[in-house]
Structure formats: C-alpha cells, structure tokens
C-alpha cells in the first residue's frame, strides 16, 4: 500500500545521548580481531601494522669497544649507542615507508615474472646466487638519489610506470610506538572474539596508554634499547588497493632499508657520533620485522624458506629455549606443520603479556634466536673449515687407505673395536645408500642455493665436498661390511661403550646422553702421532691436532656432512644468506598451515552449504511422504598426509600429499511414520557420526554415540581434526523422535501420502543444522574490528561499556543508537574528516501519523554550520551498509551544509 510519508524529525530521546565525545586520540590502527579461520585467510593479506624487533647488542658492543679504545666511559657510551641505533633504525624505516606511500620511491616487485622493469629484472637475474650484489647497489643508489631530489625522470632509470608508485597524499603516514608493555592495545594477539571484557580492557589500556606505549623516537633513558620492540601502524586510506600492492610495499621496505642503512645520511643525522660506524653493523642480524597480527609481510608459500622462517615463532615462546632448532638432526619445519596441524591462535600463545616489560619478551625471544643461530653458524662454519682442510690434505682414496690398516688389524683392543663400531655405525647412518637414513637427504643438500651460498669464499665448494664424502663413505661402508662378516664385534666380554658416538648419532640412535661429563669425554683413540695437525712443526702441542687418526678424520668428515644436512633444514632462517631483514609470521601459525593446505579456512563454510543442499534434497525426497528414510550427507575435510620436498631452482618446495575431501553418506531409517513409535535407526559406516536425528537438542535419550576418533569437525569450538576413523560399526537407537511422531501422526490421520508436518520438521531440521554450522566460532571466518578511540569515547561517556555497544564497537565503529547509525557516523567521519558531535535517528511519519523508522540519520559536526542528513541502506546486523551514491548519500539541511557538500547549485 502506497503511503505518503511526511518527513518529520524526531529526536530519539535516548537518555544516553548520541554524542560522540572523542577522547584524546591514539593513532593506533583498528585492532583486527580474528578467529582461527579468519586468521588463516588473513595470512594472504599484506599487513598494515608490524613490529620491528630491535636487538641493540651489536651496536652496544661496538660503541662499548670504541669507548675502551678512546678511554671514555664505555658503559655510558654503550647505552647511548644502543639508543641511537634503535632510533636510527626506526627513523630510517619510517622515512622509507613514507617515501613509498607518497610515491617518492618506486615499489620493487616481489614477482619478477610479470615485471616490466627490465633493468631490475636483469640485475635480479645477475645477482641470483649472491647475497650482496654491487649491481643492485648501483641501481638502488640512482633510485635513492632521485627520491632525494636528483630530478631525473623515473622512466630514464628503468621502465617504471604508474603501477610502481603509490600515490597517497604526502604526510607522515606511519604511527610509530615504542612498546613498553604488551597490553590490550595489541588485543588482536590475545582474543578471537570481541566481548564486553575485551572492550573494557582496551578502554582501560588506552586510557593508561603511557604505561604501555610511547613515541618510538623517545630518548627517555629509562627505555630499554638493548631489547626493544617498535610498533609501526601504516595509515592506509584505501585498504583494498593496499591488498594488491602491499607485499611489494614490504618487499621494497626491506630492500631499501638494507641499502639505505649503508648509503643514506639518515642514520648519521639520528646518531651524530656513531652513525658513521653504524654502517658496519650487521643490520640484518640485529633486527627483525614481524607482522602485528595475522596478516603477513611476505606472502606465505609452502616452501622451506617460509616454513623454516616461520618456525622462529617457537623461539618466541617463554619456554622457547628447547626447540627443534637445537637438535643435532632436526626433522625440519615441515614435520611440525603436518604432524602438529591445527592449533589455537590469538590467545597470546607466545606469552607476550606474561612479561612485565615488552623488552623482557624480546630479550627471551632474541636470546633463544641468537643461541639457535649461533649454534647453526658454528656448525656450518666448522663443517666448511674441516671440509677444506681434509680436501686440501688428502684425496678420498688416500683417506680410506689410512683407514684400511686401522680397520683390518691383527688384533683389536676394546677401545679399537669401539672406534671401528662408531665409524661403521656413523658411516652407515649418514652414507650408506642401502639403508638411506640420511644419504638421500645429504645428497639433496648440495642442490640448495642457500647452502651453496654458505660456501662463498670457500676453496672447496659444496658439490666437491659431497663428492669427497660419497667416495669416502662408499669405501668405509665396504670396509665395514667386511668387518661385520669377520664378526669383530661378536667377541665375548666385549660391549661397546655407547658414550663415544658423536652427539648426532646418539640422538638418532636414541642413546641417552652420558650421565656425567667424564663419561661423555670419550677421546678418539690415538694410533701413534695424530694424522692431521695444524702445524707440522708443533706436532705434540695441545690443540694442534686436527684428527687423531684416519678413523677420527673420517668420522669428522661424516659429522661435517651431517652438520650441513642438519643446518640445511633451517638455513633460510638462521644463516646469513639473505641481504634483507627476516620477516617471520610469528603470531600466525596458520600462515604455514594454510599455505601447505593443512588447514582450509573455507572448508566449514563449504561444508555447511553443501550439507544444506543435501538436506534440502533429502527433505524433498522423503519429507513429504510416509517413507521412513532420511539420507544424511556429510563431508570429511581433505587431509595433508605428508609434504614431499621437491627441489626447484635451488630451493625446497613442498608438495602436499592430500587425502581428498570425502563425502560420507548415512541412511537413517525412521520408524516413527510406520509404527507410530518414537524410534529411529541409523545405518552408517561410521557409528560415531555427529548427526542427530532430532530437530531439537535434548529430546534424544538413547542413540548410538560410539567415539572412534573419526571426527571431522570436532567437539570443542569447531576443533578441526581430520583423523580417519579407526573403528567401523553400525548402531541404532530408540529415542523420543519428534520427526517420527510427526510422521506417525500423518499416517494415522488417514494414510495420506502428503505429510506437511513431517515436511516442515525436516525442513526446519535442515535450516537448523545450517544455522548451527554457520555459528562455528572457530572454523567459519569471522572478523571484528575495534577502533580504540571509539572504545575510549564510549567508556568515558558511560563509565563502562554498555551491552548494546558491544556489537557496534566490535564492528569497528562508535556506539550510537544502533549499528546502522554507528556505521553512518563512521562513514560521515571518514567522508568529511570531521567528528560527529551529535547524531539523531531520522524518523518518518506516514499519512496516518504513525512513526516509521527511516534509513537515515541527522548529524551535527564542524563540517558545516547546520545539520546533515545521511541516507543509507543497511541490514539489521549492519553488515550490508551502503550510502546512496550521490554526494555520499548526504544532504545538507542548512544552506551552509548544502554548499559545503556541493549540491547547492542554485544557491539556496
């Protein structure tokens, strides 16, 4: 019925008022609260907020040594140096980010395949096997100079076009904080859902923000600069555009940062005394960039580089001092991804808040990281050194000829037997192709570019070393075959002293470490003078021996290759083989899990949709008639059973082996319609199916529920476990059956084939199951945002967070009369740049004088003198908010406002 509506404005006299009092604003980005599935989805989106973890040790130690050299107060200088280093890193990063966003520096593409930058592509090709490349430095210096005003046309430097430049208005677009203490101001790391308590803690943290954050360039001497964490929030006006270029943005930040640290004068400006010396600092090992939440800095791939880099997160745990990285022979990061699988996220699993100061968290993280890195560097450098020594001293044939007489002696002492036992066992573990414990793995190491780079500057290259090892191993294994045939270890009274194995072999053989230090100190047996010494003129000097014997040399050779194999598992994350800073996804384990298809954030959504279709089809087939049948369809998620390592272009790519998604069908016999009895029987291959016959929970009293570990989507909030069922059985049960009773009623009322009650109940059940599935709080992607300033404003206004504000504040907007009004206010503020001072809901009265709600609000602000009406369309939950296109849906209710908006073309 058409209604003539008379517009009238009624102030919605909500006692609470609709005044958006804006508190002193914090420049933090909105907090992006995500559940597990959304976190996985987010991993493929470039982040707009990141941390820089700054380790001031290298700077502090250098300046300390300088102080000692010049006879000054070294301690004071060291503290000063660390502070200046932190500020210099921060300033330079900010400058680069701002230059990129303002289009003063071009974006350097991550993906070179489609890049039109022929100059850059050629250099990248040329620099492929080098960690640092002079050609790249030359290229970047021209670009940098141009960004500083050299005045060249960009096209003259390379084939730059508009796509290589961001075009945001030139202003400081980086909000930068020194994090004193982790708090609710980083709530995205701690919550998967916005509720009242979350909002309260955000408000309280924001009101006391000086306890938690301060300016990142603060020179306050009480701030710890030895271990610090800096938060950088990018002010991106158009998030959609950033998602397409964001990864290039971060790639560019990293490249320019490493370059400009040594080239630009910015560190010198910040560090007026030490800036020059700072250029020698190993910047890339002193800092790390990590996303502040689930989004990423680098797009995760299912490869060794990503997985090993992201394995660093385990070191950031409070108990991260005993991770796989320190194992003699680690299984590799892929093992954790496949076998550990789904896990909790955004519950502060890294314990950021368990430390009083953020710097303590950083200290623990860096201590664990530096310790693991140190161990790997030592292992690889010692291995390379030994391979050079042995390769330079003798050929593989010569080495084995030295072993021969020791292996085939006339008589053997127990120690001698031990020595040969160790040699043969270790040679078999590492070098016997027939057993292949590690041989194939060791062979593959030589193909890895990251390991080849570790040999830069070494006379012996990785391929040479591998060939050397192969020949020695082949000969020794053949010796060992002979020794076994001769049964030299099957001698009565002889038992091998298992403490003498190298640690890597003990670990593989699961031999407990020796109980005492003395027991562990099994020295290699001496067969006369040492075989290899550093200085032949000082044979007997302590520390001059390289190998006591040919057996010792061979075992050290094997150990060197095992060390290379072990280090190769995490080389990308720990060896100094990259010219840019590391950017691990520390806070999001689902970056790896999604990239390797171990977790599919959309599976539960698809499953709910497909089940709805199947349920509706079943309802259509059986719901209307008296047939006592119902077909239940469910879907088991795909499961990654292993990750096959393939080496492509010198890098390990993992190829997930996937058990495909499987449809499971169960036939349910519902006897209610036939017997008029409330009974139903399930016939399904998996008796533990989580299917309920009944539309309502709690009615069922007696149906089969055998747990068999075969759940698809689990019990606690959407736990995603996809273990295959380990038992199969069929079972039935008899319960009060709503559907059955309904069906029976239909039969007894005259035997009509059409059964509207049963149809309705079946239909209801289908929808009910669908809605229930869609409410999965864990595995259906769900995103909420919190605008810290709006939360503070609400908290101040009400002295707390009222219940009706929770959903609105969780949608990233302020608290108004309803979610749609809140979205309109948010829209107005973003459109005009002015704060809403007063907001009223617009109401309409129809011709009969009835008040009807309208899709509009009336807003007062400093934007113009008067009121502005904003009209929109909006769903009840606010998710489909849209203003009318013309003038942003705004209409000025005063002359000034109409003029400001620009639709007063007639001047009244």
């Amino acid at each position, binding site marked *: 019925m058409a209604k003539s509506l008379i517009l009238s404005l009624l102030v919605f006299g909500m006692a609470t008022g609709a005044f958006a009092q804006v508190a002193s604003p914090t420049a933090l980005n909105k907090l992006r609260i995500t559940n597990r599935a959304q976190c996985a989805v987010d991993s493929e989106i470039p982040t707009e907020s990141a941390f820089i973890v700054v380790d001031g040790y290298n700077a502090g130690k*250098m300046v300390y040594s300088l102080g000692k050299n010049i006879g000054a107060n070294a301690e004071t200088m060291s503290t000063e140096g660390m502070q200046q280093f932190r500020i210099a890193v921060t300033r330079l990063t900010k400058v680069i980010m701002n230059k990129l966003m303002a289009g003063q520096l071009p974006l350097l593409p991550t993906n070179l395949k489609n890049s039109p930058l022929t100059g850059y592509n050629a250099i990248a090709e040329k620099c492929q096997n080098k960690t640092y490349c002079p050609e790249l430095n030359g290229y970047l210096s021209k670009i940098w100079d141009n960004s500083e005003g050299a005045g060249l046309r960009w096209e003259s430097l390379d084939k730059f076009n508009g796509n290589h430049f961001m075009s945001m208005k030139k202003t400081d677009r980086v909000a930068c904080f020194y994090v004193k203490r982790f708090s609710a101001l980083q709530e995205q790391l701690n919550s998967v859902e916005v509720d009242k308590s979350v909002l309260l803690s955000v408000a309280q943290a924001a009101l006391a923000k000086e306890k938690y954050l301060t300016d990142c360039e603060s020179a306050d001497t009480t701030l710890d600069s030895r271990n610090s964490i800096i938060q950088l929030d990018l002010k991106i006006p158009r998030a959609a555009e950033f998602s397409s270029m964001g990864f290039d943005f971060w790639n560019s930040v990293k490249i320019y940062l490493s370059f400009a640290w040594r080239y630009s004068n910015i560190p010198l400006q910040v560090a007026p005394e030490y800036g020059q*010396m700072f250029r*020698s600092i190993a910047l890339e090992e002193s800092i790390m960039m990590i996303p502040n939440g689930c989004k990423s800095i680098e797009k995760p791939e299912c490869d060794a580089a990503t997985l090993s880099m992201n394995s660093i997160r385990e070191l950031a745990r409070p108990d991260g001092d005993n991770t796989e990285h320190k194992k003699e022979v680690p299984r590799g990061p892929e093992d954790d991804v496949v076998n550990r699988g789904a896990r909790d996220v955004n519950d502060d699993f890294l314990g950021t808040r368990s430390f009083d100061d953020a710097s303590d968290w950083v200290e623990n993280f860096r201590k664990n990281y530096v310790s693991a890195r140190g161990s790997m560097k030592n292992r690889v450098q010692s291995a390379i050194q030994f391979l050079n020594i042995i390769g330079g001293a003798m050929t593989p044939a010569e080495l084995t000829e030295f072993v021969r007489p*020791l292996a085939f002696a006339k008589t053997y002492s127990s120690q001698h037997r031990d020595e040969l036992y160790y040699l043969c066992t270790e040679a078999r573990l590492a070098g016997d192709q027939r057993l292949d414990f590690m041989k194939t793995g060791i062979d593959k190491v030589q193909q890895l570019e990251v390991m080849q780079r570790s040999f830069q500057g070494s006379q012996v290259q990785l391929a040479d070393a591998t060939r050397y090892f192969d020949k020695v191993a082949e000969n020794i294994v053949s010796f060992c075959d002979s020794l076994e045939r001769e049964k030299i270890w099957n001698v009565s009274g002889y038992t091998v002293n298992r403490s003498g194995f190298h640690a890597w072999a003990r670990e593989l053989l699961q031999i407990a470490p020796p109980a005492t230090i003395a027991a562990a100190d099994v020295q290699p047996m001496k067969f006369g003078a040492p075989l290899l010494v550093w200085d032949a003129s000082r044979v007997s000097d302590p520390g001059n021996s390289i190998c006591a014997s040919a057996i010792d040399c061979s075992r050290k050779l094997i150990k060197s290759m095992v060390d290379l194999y072990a280090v190769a598992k995490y080389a990308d994350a720990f060896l100094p083989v990259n010219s840019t800073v590391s950017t691990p996804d520390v806070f999001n384990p689902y970056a790896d899990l999604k990239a390797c298809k171990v977790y599919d954030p959309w599976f539960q959504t698809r499953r709910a949709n497909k089940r709805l279709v199947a349920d509706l089809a079943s309802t259509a087939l059986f719901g209307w008639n008296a047939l006592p049948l119902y077909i239940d369809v469910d879907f088991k998620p795909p499961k990654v059973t292993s990750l096959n390592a393939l080496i492509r272009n010198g890098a390990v790519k993992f190829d997930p082996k996937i058990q495909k998604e499987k449809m499971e069908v169960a036939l349910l016999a519902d006897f209610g319609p036939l017997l008029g009895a409330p009974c139903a029987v399930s016939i399904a291959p998996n008796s533990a199916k989580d299917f309920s016959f009944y539309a309502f929970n709690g009615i069922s009293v007696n149906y089969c529920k055998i747990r068999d570990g075969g759940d698809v989507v689990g019990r606690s909030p959407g736990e995603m476990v996809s273990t295959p069922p380990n038992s199969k059985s069929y079972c039935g049960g008899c319960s009060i059956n709503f559907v059955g009773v309904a069906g029976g009623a239909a039969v007894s009322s005259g035997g009509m084939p059409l059964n509207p009650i049963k149809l309705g109940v079946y239909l209801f059940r289908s929808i009910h199951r669908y809605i229930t599935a869609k409410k999965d709080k864990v595995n259906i992607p769900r995103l909420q945002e919190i605008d810290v300033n709006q939360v503070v404003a609400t908290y101040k206004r009400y002295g707390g967070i009222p219940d009706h504000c929770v959903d609105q504040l969780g949608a990233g907007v302020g608290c108004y009369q309803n979610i749609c009004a809140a979205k309109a206010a948010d829209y107005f503020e973003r459109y005009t740049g002015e704060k809403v001072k007063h907001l009223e809901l617009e109401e309409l009265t129809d011709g009969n004088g009835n008040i009807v709600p309208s899709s509009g609000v009336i807003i007062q602000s400093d934007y113009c003198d008067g009121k502005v009406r904003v009209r929109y369309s909006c769903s009840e939950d606010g998710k489909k908010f849209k203003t009318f296109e013309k003038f942003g849906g705004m209409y000025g209710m005063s002359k000034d406002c109409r003029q400001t908006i620009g639709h007063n073309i007639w001047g009244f």
Partner: protein
Amino acid sequence: MGVLLISVFLIANQASAFLVESSYMKQAGGQYVKVTKVTCDTASSSDCQTLCQNPTTCQRSEPYCRNCAGTTSPLLRQLFTEISKSYAISQELNDRQMLVKYLATEKYVLLDIKSVFNYYTPVGGEAFGKELGFFCGDAAESALLAVKLDEVHQPMALSYVLCRNNIGQTSAFEVKPRQPGMGNRPLTSPLIFNLN
C-alpha cells in the same frame, strides 16, 4: 679498483720511520671514524708522498665494513678465534711499494687487539693477543691485520699482518692459509699397520 680518499695532516715536528697505525678520531661533524695513519721519515718520505702527496704523514678514514659489527662474517670469526691455526706467514714483504700501493688503492680495514669488530673474544683480551703474538711476538699490542674488502664492503681476505719491529717501524708480512700437516708422516708410509 677502489678509490682511496687520503686526507693529509702535516705534523711538522714529528717524523719517524715508516709506521702504520690505526686509531679513532672524531670528525668535525662529531662522527667517530676509524683512521689509518701512516707516518714517514726522511728515508721513507717518498712512500707518504705516493700515498697522499705529503712527505711525512697521511691519514685516511676506513670505509665501512659490511656486517663486521656482528657475527656474520666467517672470515672475521676465523681471524679473531684461530688465526694462528688457519694462517701462516709466507714471507716478509721486502718491497714496501706493494704495501704502499695496497694502502693507497685497496678497500681494507685494519684489525687490532682492541678492534671493535671482535665479537668473538673479549676485546683487548689475552686470547686474541696470544693469536696476534704468534705473528708479531712481543709487538702483539700494536699488530694490525689488513683485511681486504670486496665490492660490497664485505671482508674478503687477510692480506697482510703488520707488525712493529724493534726500531718502531712497520713490517708487513704476507700470509697464506696454513696447510695442515700430516703428523710428520708422508702419505706413502703407512706407519700404522699392526698396531695391536
């Protein structure tokens, strides 16, 4: 070939034998820099003349050394922890012109007992002093390791060990990686038969 910037400081009343030293100074702008100072006497004045067109003293700021303030470089690790094991003197450099040319044209840094790049043993400590003493004897305190940098300023090779001799003059020694010995046993003599 690198371009060497030589700044000249004429110290009128000082002249000694050819001497290479390394120290820190504060530039006019306030920045600390490491400088290599070469002093020449009358006999060696032509060397300084060649270096910086000044007959008595030359001074040059060290270039930056990529990643040297840290634990990234395997070469620095080797030099600071086991230089005496890894390197041996091959010969004393008799032709000083080679050293002068090196100082004038190459990109290098000088490491000494108190080097700020020593992240491996205590700075000024006994451990590194002992290692340097292996090459320079009692003059370990003033020993210098000349480390050549590559195009991207990474330490590339140990070029010379510079020791101050007993008349206070710098002697340069060429070094080579040590070839491990075979424990006094030639490969062709299998001494270790029938050990038991």
